[in-house]
């Protein structure tokens, strides 16, 4: 006989009279017998109370007669229940392992008397049918799906989602069965779970499965759906990829007709083939088509990393576009993420490379600011190493350095993802180390709180002043992973704590630590962004720190931190943790200027064309420069921010791509007496102000200046930019080769106190070997 104590769930099962062989072979330990009696008594009492309280709750007569009416009408509906042959194929496929959940909007049930006329924004009337290995249930799913398809002419706008979860996805979650998955989904709030959802389309939604449809089966992929907002509004949804299941002769295609969506792309890791992308058109429907997959299920581990597509900036003619406007970016995540890929022996995905983040990963030796402007502006130019007739112009900003003891007090709330996926060594344990390093830097004026989120969320460390080192370290040590991710409640709580302990004039920030699977729900991404944006206005900023790999959602993380006046770092090892949390902590946490925008005004007499290297996602319309309502990047204490332009000097031949120059427009001739190449204009706001300040810096370059004579910082930044261009296979890379990058970087790595520049050289060597494979 096995003895069990009161902590064992079998204890309760036995008290409740459950019958099973297992329970017959266990007995309650003698010290818990009293507790057992109490449980028995409680169970009896519960039975009684439930039994006695049987107040006759029934449907009203109206409701029942409604049902009767509907029953009479059902004949017209029966034809929907005649399932076409492929339904059974669906069922057969599902039975071999795929799990599908079809969700769609329930139609108004009572047509004569619509009870719930849904306005557009309450698109959440979703019916859900779990399709597991139960054939009859899959039939129900298809039946309802058919209804949803056919019954859409009532003028009520709705949303339809097809949601398909796969076996692989189930495995990836670490749940053992489809039932557990549904249980997981319930906990995570199914619809609030970005994973496995295909499609998030808010406008007239015909979702058809083509006639030839046999069946579809998914494995991990990513859908990027950009809602047409110029200012990065991209949702990255992790999910499954459609693949053919060769049943009979049919091909499997899902056609999602999504009118009025300016841009949609679908990308993914197709087995070992890298990525593939299909785009819709600005005015028309976009089609997503399943990619045939030769081997069925991909042999490699599922890769659910999501990256937004990056289209490189092209040269722009100064005559047509004299103004170039962008927001600064101090993020560095792309660099460490790229490093992780190369170290792991994989060629980085081009869309994972944001060149400005590579350049800004390194600190440059720019002058300290003097005077009132909180940052210095350092402009330098020399010939481009990849095209000597072009010039590179570097704009380097350096934020005022603030001594540790002059730093304002900090009120930090760490929002830590403790979902099951964080259990890996390079995730939660690394996050814990990083947090401890940070806590060591803090003093009695600073406050730290920790909120965790997973299946449930909670405050594990109330806001505590940082002189209680032991308490805090202990709380950090006790973080454990387990459960599913559900970010919504956690982030709400984190902001609540941060607001309660708000320090006027201090550093108030919520810092998210996650592997990126931030499941607040597809439909709620917008609300999340709004929340973060709104809180940033109230002075609580937001930072995101990414850990690990596999289901890392780069695009979403970057977007969230941008909206929150925050920064975004990716930590791939202890050294990086030290860099972010210790070396750069002040800059990372202490913003000295916000909404920093740069507008470069080029002189057409001196410059024919220019190209901004990187900052693709940070470009602004020229009108946005003076618009204080337009959000932009922040600069922290001691931070350096670098931007490079490749410019075509006047007199150098430039291909205008077949567009004839205007007959009437002439370059401003030297009559202006100006030989200035350009003027760099900057707008910024003090951290607690809403009105921006303007500063400008005219610059005159020298076309004779050769690259080799430029400053080491200039040359190093150029080599990093060149490396990024090679990784992205840029059309502008000219004659640049990896060996050139290595040589330039090697010669230029001055003041490399933390060894990161030397590490870069090594990284380029490895990348070179990878590319040659």
């Amino acid at each position, binding site marked *: 006989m096995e003895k069990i104590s009161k902590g064992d*769930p*079998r*204890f309760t*099962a036995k008290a409740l009279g*459950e019958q099973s062989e297992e329970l017959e072979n266990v007995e309650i330990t003698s010290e818990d017998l009293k507790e057992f009696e*109490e*449980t028995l008594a*409680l169970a009896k*009492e*519960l*039975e009684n*109370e439930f*039994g*006695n*309280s*049987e*107040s*006759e*709750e029934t*449907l*009203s007569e109206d409701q*029942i007669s409604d*049902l009767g009416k*509907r*029953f009479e009408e*059902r004949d017209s*509906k029966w034809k929907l*229940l005649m*399932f076409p042959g492929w339904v059974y194929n669906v069922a057969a496929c599902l039975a071999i392992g795929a799990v599908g959940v079809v969700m769609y909007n329930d139609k108004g*049930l009572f047509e004569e008397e619509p*009870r719930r006329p849904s306005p557009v924004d*309450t698109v*959440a*009337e*979703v*019916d*859900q*049918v779990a399709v597991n290995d139960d054939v009859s249930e899959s039939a*129900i799913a298809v039946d309802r799906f058919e209804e949803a398809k056919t019954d859409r002419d009532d003028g009520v706008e709705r949303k339809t989602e097809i949601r398909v979860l796969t076996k692989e996805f189930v495995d990836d979650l670490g749940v053992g*069965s489809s*039932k*557990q998955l549904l*249980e997981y989904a*319930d*906990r995570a*709030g*199914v*619809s609030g779970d970005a994973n496995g959802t295909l499609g998030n389309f808010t406008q007239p939604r015909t979702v058809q499965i083509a006639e030839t449809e046999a069946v579809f089966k998914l494995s991990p992929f990513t859908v990027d759906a950009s809602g047409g907002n110029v200012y990065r509004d991209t949702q990255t949804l992790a999910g499954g990829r459609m693949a053919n299941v060769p049943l009979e002769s049919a091909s499997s295609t899902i056609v999602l007709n999504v009118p009025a969506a300016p841009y949609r792309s679908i990308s993914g890791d197709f087995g070992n083939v890298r990525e593939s992308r299909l785009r819709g058109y600005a005015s028309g429907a976009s089609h997503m088509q399943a990619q045939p997959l030769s081997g069925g299920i991909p042999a490699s581990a599922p890769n659910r990393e999501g990256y937004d597509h990056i289209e490189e900036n092209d040269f722009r003619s100064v005559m047509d576009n004299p103004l170039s406007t962008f927001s600064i970016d101090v993020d560095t995540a792309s660099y460490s993420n790229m490093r992780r890929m190369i170290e792991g022996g994989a060629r980085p995905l081009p869309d994972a490379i944001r060149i400005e983040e590579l350049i800004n990963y390194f600190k440059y030796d720019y002058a300290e600011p003097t005077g009132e402007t909180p940052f210095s502006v350092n402009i330098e130019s020399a010939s481009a190493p990849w095209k000597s007739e072009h010039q590179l112009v570097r704009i380097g900003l350096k934020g005022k350095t603030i001594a540790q003891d002059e730093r304002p007090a900090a009120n930090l709330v760490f929002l830590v993802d403790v979902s099951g996926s964080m259990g890996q060594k390079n995730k939660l344990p690394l996050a814990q180390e990083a947090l401890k390093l940070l806590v060591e830097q803090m003093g009695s004026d600073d406050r730290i709180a920790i909120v965790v989120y997973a*299946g*449930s969320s*909670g405050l594990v460390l109330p806001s505590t002043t940082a002189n209680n080192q032991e308490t805090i370290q202990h709380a950090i040590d006790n973080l454990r992973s387990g459960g599913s991710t559900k970010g*919504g*409640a956690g982030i*709400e*709580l984190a902001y*609540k704590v941060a607001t309660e302990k708000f320090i006027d004039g201090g550093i108030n920030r919520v810092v998210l630590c996650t592997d990126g699977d931030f499941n*607040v729900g597809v439909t*709620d991404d917008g*609300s*999340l962004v709004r929340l973060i944006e709104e809180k940033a206005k109230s002075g609580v900023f937001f930072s995101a720190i990414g850990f690990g790999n596999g289901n890392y959602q780069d695009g979403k993380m970057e977007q969230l931190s941008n909206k929150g006046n925050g920064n975004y770092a990716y930590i791939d090892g202890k050294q990086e943790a030290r860099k972010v949390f210790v070396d750069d902590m002040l800059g990372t946490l202490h913003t000295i200027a916000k909404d920093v925008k740069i507008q470069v005004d080029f002189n057409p007499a001196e410059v024919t064309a220019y190209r901004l290297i990187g900052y693709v996602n940070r470009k602004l319309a020229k009108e946005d420069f003076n618009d204080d309502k337009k959000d932009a990047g922040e600069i922290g204490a001691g931070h350096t921010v670098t931007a490079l332009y490749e410019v075509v000097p006047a007199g150098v031949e430039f291909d205008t791509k077949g567009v004839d120059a205007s007959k009437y427009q002439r370059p401003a001739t030297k009559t202006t007496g100006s030989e200035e190449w350009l003027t760099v204009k900057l707008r910024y706001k003090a951290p607690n102000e809403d009105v921006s300040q303007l500063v400008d810096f005219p610059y005159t370059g020298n076309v004779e200046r050769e690259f080799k004579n430029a400053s080491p910082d200039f040359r190093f930044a150029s080599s990093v930019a060149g490396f990024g261009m090679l990784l992205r296979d840029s059309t502008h890379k000219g004659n640049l080769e990896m060996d050139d990058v290595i040589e330039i970087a090697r010669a230029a790595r001055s003041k490399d106190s933390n060894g990161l520049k030397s590490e870069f050289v090594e990284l380029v060597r490895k990348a070179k070997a990878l590319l040659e494979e």
Partner: protein
Amino acid sequence: MGKRTNDVRDWDEVHQAILSHQTALIRYASSILGEREGAKDVVQEVFLKLCKQPWRDVEGHLVNWLFRVTRNQALDLLRKEKRMSLFENPETMERLAGVGESSGQDARTQERVGSLLELVGQLPGKERELVTLKFQQGLSYKEISEVTGMTVGNVGYVLHHALKELKTRWSAAESV
């Protein structure tokens, strides 16, 4: 294609099902929703679905089917509420997340049906649901598992916690 696909029951049969099961289903839906009125709408929808259901889908397991569909409907309703109030109402979030003191508010607006039931009403959503299935319907763990899609082990785990919690609160209430 199954022969019985078109086997339609007559209204009396459906009506009989309504009379026999409506009360239990309403209770069950309320245990998920934390309130009574929405529960009736949910149950009406469930029977509407039954009207439209091929007989072979429910034959032999009508009761299970009713509970399962009730559950799906009720959860959908909750999700809808959640979507509309996400970030506006942390309490709803907490209730949905099944954490914290949860549905106390909703439970309090209900009629008082007895102290212990009141305590049940204050349990987090999932616990409340399972306790209802267990003690009102007298279902076994396995039957609960069939209705909810949870594993038997998980059912046991949740009920174990629910009872522990109830016991603590009960004895606290008794001693007052």
